[in-house]
């Protein structure tokens, strides 16, 4: 098990890097997909232990289910990206993409559309990691789940955190016209996070 611990400076550098990657690639991709302006400020990166898991649950609505799309990346660097939305936002997203009304239930095609958005956004991130670092990686098939927020973040943490702590980078993508908010979380083991720094 890794005993790597990132310094404050490492975490800041990592945060700047990931924030830059999201800004340069993920934001324009989402904007092109939805044909609207996307607002993104910056990410917040921290090193956490499993006991701190509850600190990183996005504050959507604890009374309702949320939608998570999870994509893994393996190869010379390993990490997981979770895109997280309120169910109502996921329905809005699906409706917008397909031109159908998904306000009642998220249909099979609606889920497919939301999962594909996660897939494309994750790929835009992988592309810039490859461009900037030269590291080769392969993305997994995206998985979509509808569950409470705490359950949605368990899988990424369990899969990517090999050591006692894990690195979590979090950002919010705000769609200006549709008011959809997509929470993007990147999970890494500290050893992999150091490859970015």
């Amino acid at each position, binding site marked *: 098990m890794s005993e790597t611990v990132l310094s404050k400076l490492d975490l800041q550098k990592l945060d700047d890097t990931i924030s830059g990657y999201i800004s340069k690639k993920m934001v324009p*991709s989402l904007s*092109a*997909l939805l044909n609207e302006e996307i607002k993104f400020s910056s990410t917040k990166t921290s090193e956490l232990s499993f006991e701190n898991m509850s600190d990183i649950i996005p504050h959507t609505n604890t009374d309702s289910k949320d939608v998570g799309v999870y994509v893994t990346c393996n190869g010379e660097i390993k990490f997981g990206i979770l895109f997280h939305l309120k169910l109502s936002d996921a329905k809005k997203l699906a409706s917008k*993409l*397909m031109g159908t009304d998904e306000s009642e239930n998220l249909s*099979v*095609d609606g889920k*497919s*559309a939301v*999962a*594909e958005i996660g*897939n*494309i956004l994750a*790929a*835009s991130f*992988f*592309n810039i990691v*490859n461009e900037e670092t030269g590291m*080769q*990686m*392969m*993305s*997994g*098939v995206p998985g979509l789940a509808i569950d409470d927020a705490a359950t949605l973040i368990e899988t990424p943490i369990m899969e990517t955190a090999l050591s006692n702590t894990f690195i979590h980078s979090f950002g919010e993508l705000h769609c200006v016209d549709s008011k959809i908010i997509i929470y993007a979380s990147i999970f890494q083991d500290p050893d992999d996070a150091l490859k970015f720094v």
Partner: protein
Amino acid sequence: MSENGTKILVVDDASFMRTVLKDILKSNGLATEIIEAADGVEAVRQFITHRPDLITMDVNMPKADGLQALKGIMKVDHTARVIMVTSVEQKHIIQDAMKSGARDYIIKPFDKGSVGLVLNKALRAK
């Protein structure tokens, strides 16, 4: 081209992406018949059954991925026209596909104009 028009096989595990591509094919007037497959295994099966003029092949799929399906199709017919569809624009993936017989590739999210050009070019080639 087939005597009865242009037949295109659209392969992607995401039904949404198949719909997007079908819409692009229809709006560009590129296909008279569109067949679909949701994974690499089904892609090869549909190719054998329908012998389409062109195949759009997603790279990242469950069961058999796009590269495996491409190789499977090339074994059946090395003249098949396959266009890879990827959201991960990594040279080694694209190079592998081109070496295995793919004619070209398109990147998600799609630019409708560019997609139309790539597919049209592939259909006109021998």
